[in-house]
């Protein structure tokens, strides 16, 4: 294992990350909100640490192998949040490192669970920093690094795959991986600008629009207000949010193809996107109907508005709320939590099991059923008319097992540390799916600040686990990985 070479690449990713702090620093400078010094010191510290690491490992510059890629990804995703805590720690009084690290992990994994209260009183630049973390982490820091630094060479595609794993064979969009990464980020930036503009036109202040543009496209639920979207109580803003959340939950490779060919064909041919839209529409109607029939809302229109926003927000693993859905009958929030575990498409900024795996599993069920009727049938699982190998299906089955085991183990750990079942289970699921708010003690009306330090660390770990789709992080913990 060429640990030193990995650290060398890590140092360069960290350099890039330090540069990203220039944005909140600049905003703080312009607004004079008092957080300028915090960002200045954080930037200097991150930059300095990165430079030191880089110089110390300069002699070990080498092409990375597949194994090194996993280690690098795991390191990047654990080390970056540590540096990301600096502005928070320096500008918010009384914030513990545990909570700050949780907040940073929640940001970079695009979860949106927060330990901070009184968001409205925070310096705007700090909120921008929280949003920026979500935005960077949403598409992937390493994807960004591959796109703009010529640092990863051939190994780049391995890193790329380790950070955004999908069950399908990797179909490169362009011959060179750096071009692919660039293309994806370009589309991402384009949609983000459109989203920011739309928010601004719908009535947000420019700073709010910027911050929410970041968190909407990254599908993390940070807001600049404790009340989240209830602060505006504006159907127009909610509509903008819904549209862009759905866009961000579609595979960016599909967006990329559609942009490059200037046609809607890639969307129509993407089975995942179609399934996602169908599931979203049906679940919104289901929840709206349920809320109306149980008398939570007197008018179906109102029920539809709240159901649409909160269902889309949770299902796409964003985590905004425009009302305290923790007060709804438990069926509705449970449905939403369940949706968050599989609705986002692979290659989107959402998390969870991903729609493509759900589809494969679903088709596998029918395949088995058909096989009991026709014992000699030959019917591979097919996605958009392309048959998948059994190996792919087995990998997805293994993933499902890992996923459910993770939910069970995390729930057990959280309840063992003293949380009640609903809070523990929902915190485990919401963290693993990078959704953000759960139910009960960690519901939309409260924050994760109530948790003990142990519980906070468990949730931080769960968020990393979910963002890296289990395998990438878990493989680093296997003995075989470290064997020469």
């Amino acid at each position: 294992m060429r640990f030193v070479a990995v650290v060398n690449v890590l140092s360069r990713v960290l350099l890039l990350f330090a540069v990203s702090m220039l944005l909140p620093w600049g905003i703080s400078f312009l607004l004079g909100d008092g957080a300028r010094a915090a960002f200045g010191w954080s930037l200097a510290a991150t930059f300095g640490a990165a430079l030191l690491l880089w110089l110390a490992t300069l002699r070990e510059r080498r092409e990375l192998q597949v194994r090194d890629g996993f280690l690098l990804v795991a390191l990047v995703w654990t080390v970056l949040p540590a540096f990301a805590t600096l502005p928070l720690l320096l500008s918010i009084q009384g914030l513990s490192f545990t909570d700050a690290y949780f907040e940073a992990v929640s940001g970079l994994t695009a979860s949106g669970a927060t330990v901070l209260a009184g968001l409205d009183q925070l310096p705007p630049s700090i909120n921008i920093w929280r949003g920026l973390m979500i935005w960077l982490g949403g598409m992937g820091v390493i994807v960004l690094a591959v796109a703009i630094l010529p640092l990863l060479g051939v190994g780049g595609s391995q890193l790329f795959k380790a950070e955004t794993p999908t069950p399908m064979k990797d179909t490169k969009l362009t011959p060179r991986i750096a071009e692919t990464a660039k293309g994806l980020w370009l589309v991402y930036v384009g949609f983000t600008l459109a989203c920011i503009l739309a928010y601004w036109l719908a009535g947000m202040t420019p700073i709010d629009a910027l911050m929410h543009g970041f968190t909407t496209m990254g599908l993390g639920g940070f807001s600049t207000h404790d009340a989240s979207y209830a602060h505006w109580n504006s159907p127009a803003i909610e509509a903008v949010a819904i549209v862009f959340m759905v866009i961000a939950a579609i595979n960016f490779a599909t967006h990329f193809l559609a942009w490059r060919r200037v046609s809607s064909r890639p969307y129509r041919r993407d089975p995942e996107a179609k399934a996602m839209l169908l599931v979203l529409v049906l679940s919104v109607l289901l929840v709206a109907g349920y809320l109306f029939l149980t008398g939570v809302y007197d008018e179906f229109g109102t029920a539809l508005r709240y159901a649409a926003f909160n269902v889309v927000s949770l299902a796409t693993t964003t985590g905004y709320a425009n009302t305290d859905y923790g007060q709804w009958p438990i069926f509705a929030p449970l449905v939403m939590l369940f949706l968050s575990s599989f609705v986002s498409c692979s290659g989107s900024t959402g998390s969870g099991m991903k729609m493509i795996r759900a589809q494969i599993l679903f088709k596998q069920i029918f395949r088995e059923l058909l096989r009991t009727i026709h014992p000699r049938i030959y019917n591979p699982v097919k996605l958009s008319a392309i048959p998948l190998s059994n190996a792919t299906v087995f990998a997805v089955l293994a993933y499902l097992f890992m996923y459910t085991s993770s939910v069970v183990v995390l729930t057990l750990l959280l309840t063992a540390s003293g949380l009640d079942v609903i809070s523990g289970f929902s915190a485990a699921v919401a963290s693993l799916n990078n959704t953000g708010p759960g139910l009960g003690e960690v519901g939309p009306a409260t924050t994760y600040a109530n948790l003990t330090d142990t519980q906070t660390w468990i949730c931080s770990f769960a968020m990393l686990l979910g963002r890296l789709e289990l395998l990438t992080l878990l493989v680093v913990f296997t003995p075989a990985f470290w064997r020469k």
Partner: protein
Amino acid sequence: MKVVILGAGQVGGSVAESLVSEQNDITVVDLEPQRLRTLQERLDLRTVIGSGAHPSVLTEAGIEDADLLVAVTQSDETNLVACRIAARMFNVPRRIARVRATDYLANERVLGEEGFDVDLSICPEQVLTDYIVKLVEFPEALQVLDFAGGKVSLVAVRAYSGGPLVGHPLKDLRPHMPRIDARIVAIFRGDRAIVPDGDTVIEAGDEVFCLAASEHIREVMRELRRMDRPVKRVMIGGGGNIGLRLAMALEGRYSVRVIEHDKGRCELLAARLGEALVLNGDTTDEELLEDENIGEMDLFVAVTNDDENNIMSSLLAKRMGARRVVSLINRRSYVDLLQSGQIDIAISPAQATIGTLLAHVRRGDVVAVHSLRRGAAEALEAVVHGDRESCRVTDRRVDELDVPPGTTIGAVVRGDKVIMAHHDTVIRAEDHVIVFVADKKNLPRVERMFQVGVRFM
């Protein structure tokens, strides 16, 4: 005429066979000496061993003064390259290629003059598939053939006792169907052809060939025999080229099952097919057929490349309760053995597929040729040119024509209009005339009729 045929497989063999009997100089090229030897033993032709795409081999086969190249090897690429070389290096005036891949057919520039310069591309598998699909659509028919771009159809039906027309003379057909103009062009009783006239009485067991505008085919068939219930479930034995094409053409409209014994092939079938079920096993596996409810099938089609296998599986399927069984049989002797036996329809691929190819070889402007009754009879579509002076057909009434015995002028297509030929119908230039020839011996005379005189050429 000098003809070079590339490929001595099933298609090449039957092309050679039908052309030999029409007095041509034929050279067959193939890589397999064994195949050529068997062909040479049976037919009077020359053979050359080698790759059909190599200029030296083509030269040896006498391509330099050939009038026609028929490239029908297994490989599309060999066929295409041979056509191009024949056109550019040897100036062969007419080139026919067997092309299977739809990719080549999708863009006409591939086969056009700037591409591989192919005059006519044929795909026997597709022709056979179309043939069988017709049988699924018209479960009562023995055969359905299209003429004039699908405007006119010829159907062969076996008359059963109890059918409305059986036992009646043909002139009763008209009052039965006042709105529809249909014409019975031939009746085969046993192996004998009967030239029908108004007083001919249809008997049970007769094979009746009836010509009508395509949109009226269903009603005509209803007159000839009681309608079967429409086909819903189809089982295809064999997932080869024909099995796959057939399944693709039928799935969606019918419930389709395909049985294929090769695992790798199953994989490919499953990838290409959507709703059709792909089953891994032998077509003669009784247990498998039982499991898959063969008794409930409306149609069982055996299309493996093995005659014996097709025959046995069809007989098995019939015994186990399949309503109708169709089998692909290459060997002519088998076809004669089995037709009108337990197997409802035996299809000879060679006969079914070389019609289009033969049309190209004929004198006169022949657009389509279909072999009927295992090649004993033929239906052809010819275009009339010239005028009363230069051509023996143009501007004449049907009863003025000097037609050989057993030959019937069935229908005339003028523009978009379909006219059933009566004794007083006048044939004009540019008409498409559909002629039924009950005895193949008379073919050259029929062709000569449609030729335009020398001074016109």
